[in-house]
């Protein structure tokens, strides 16, 4: 479980996160949603330690991550898998080498064992016969799936996905969303997805945190978000003409 307690983060005079608190429980897909510029990515970067918080606490299974130094954090980092917005695959490595990379750094597996594990992870994300391709030779959807395969290669306890659907067509987006959900349930991981895609919210949102002006504005499930009368959420959920039309027809 990940606990975020009263986290504050500023950049000069710009106070991005205000006393932010929430909990992300294992075996559920936790979504952080909100409009652009509200602090979603900053919150995610603070949780994984890519940014330092000004005050508050971040706990991984009760261990105070925010008070640890870089070396102490490494042990927790080894339990984290992350899918980046642009996939962040290593350009100079093939798909197979990308997935094997964390294994080669942190395990004593033989090359064959690493290759077997890489193939298993690639098959798990429905990729085959792509081992020798370079990331530049893969489509956006394939890159995301390779990113997920790399993220799960070390059997992480925590999975972070930063806008996994950005730049993907609707059907590939659904495929990626379902994959994230399946993996979360299968391995009992604590999954945190940063998104502003309403399709993802409806598809996989077990626990949704709505961030507005750097504050935890609302929390609930995908069913609750559609019935809430919170004006900021209504503005966010029904921002597009499509959603407004849909809402009109349903009501």
């Amino acid at each position, binding site marked *: 479980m990940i606990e975020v307690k009263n986290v504050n983060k500023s950049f000069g005079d710009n106070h991005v996160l205000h006393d932010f608190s929430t909990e992300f429980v294992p075996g559920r897909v936790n979504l952080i949603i909100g409009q652009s510029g509200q602090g979603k990515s900053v919150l995610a970067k603070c949780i*994984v330690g890519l940014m330092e918080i000004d005050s508050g606490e971040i706990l991984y299974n009760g261990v105070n991550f925010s008070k640890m130094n870089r070396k102490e954090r490494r*042990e*927790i*980092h080894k339990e984290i898998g992350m899918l*980046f917005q642009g996939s962040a695959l290593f*350009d100079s490595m093939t798909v197979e080498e990308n997935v094997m*990379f964390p294994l080669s*750094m*942190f395990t004593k597996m033989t090359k064959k064992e690493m290759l077997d594990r890489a193939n298993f992870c690639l098959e798990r994300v429905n990729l085959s016969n792509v081992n020798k391709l370079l990331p530049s030779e893969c489509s956006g959807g394939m890159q995301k799936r390779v990113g997920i395969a790399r993220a799960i290669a*070390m059997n992480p306890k925590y999975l972070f996905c930063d806008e996994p659907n950005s730049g993907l067509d609707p059907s590939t987006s659904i495929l990626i969303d379902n994959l994230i959900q399946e993996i979360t349930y299968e391995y009992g991981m604590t999954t945190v997805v940063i998104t502003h895609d309403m399709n993802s919210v409806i598809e996989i949102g077990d626990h949704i945190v709505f961030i507005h002006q750097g504050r935890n504005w609302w929390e609930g499930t995908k069913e609750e978000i559609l019935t809430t009368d919170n004006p900021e959420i209504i503005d966010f959920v029904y921002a597009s003409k499509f959603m407004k039309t849909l809402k009109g027809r349903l009501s």
Partner: protein
Amino acid sequence: MSYIETIGKYVGMIRRVFSRPERLKVYYTRTINEMMTIGLNSAGIVFILSVFMGAVVVIQTASNMDSPLLPKYTIGYITRSTTILEFSPTIISLILAGKVGSNIASELGTMRVTEQIDALEIMGINSASYLILPKILAAVLFFPFLIIFSMGLSLIGGYLVIFFTGLSSPEEYLFGLRSFFKVSDITYALQKTVVFAFIITSVSSYYGYYTKGGSLAVGKSSTDAVVWSSIVILLANFLLTQLILL
């Protein structure tokens, strides 16, 4: 950012670079690969520059020797001394700062803006050490060979000019090359080279590693890397000349 802050950040980065590596075998492989990328791949440009540099030094020296009292072998002597003491270690290092420095800064800068460095950190890898240490080691170990290669080629370039133009006889040129030779000149040149190799890779890595923004920022980091590596090389050259030769 003030210069003091920049220096502090650079020192902080160097401390992280030289912290204990995760897997020595991985670092060994990466160092060998970097030797190929930043060392062996620079051999071509070093070859061309060195031959022409030696040739020009011979022509310049010969054209400035007006006094008939100066023996012709002076051309060989001056060519050897200037090449070994300054031209090969300093000029070639400045050229390498342009070629290798921009390559390192743009590679690391691109990795930064595409979140590849963040991905390494999230995995629990010391990204500074993993990415930068092999580059520094490769340059420090390989550049001395490049500079010795450059010295030899410069002297050959000078010989070719002598041979084809007749500015002096080849025998006099070769006699000049051997005259008053001190091994300490080579040692001095290689000491300088090692320092310059460290400067080129670490300064360029600093600008690449701390790139902020998008593709424009990568271009700026690359330019800054070349400019500051060159400035620091010139300063270090001055200080080392004072320290070692005087």
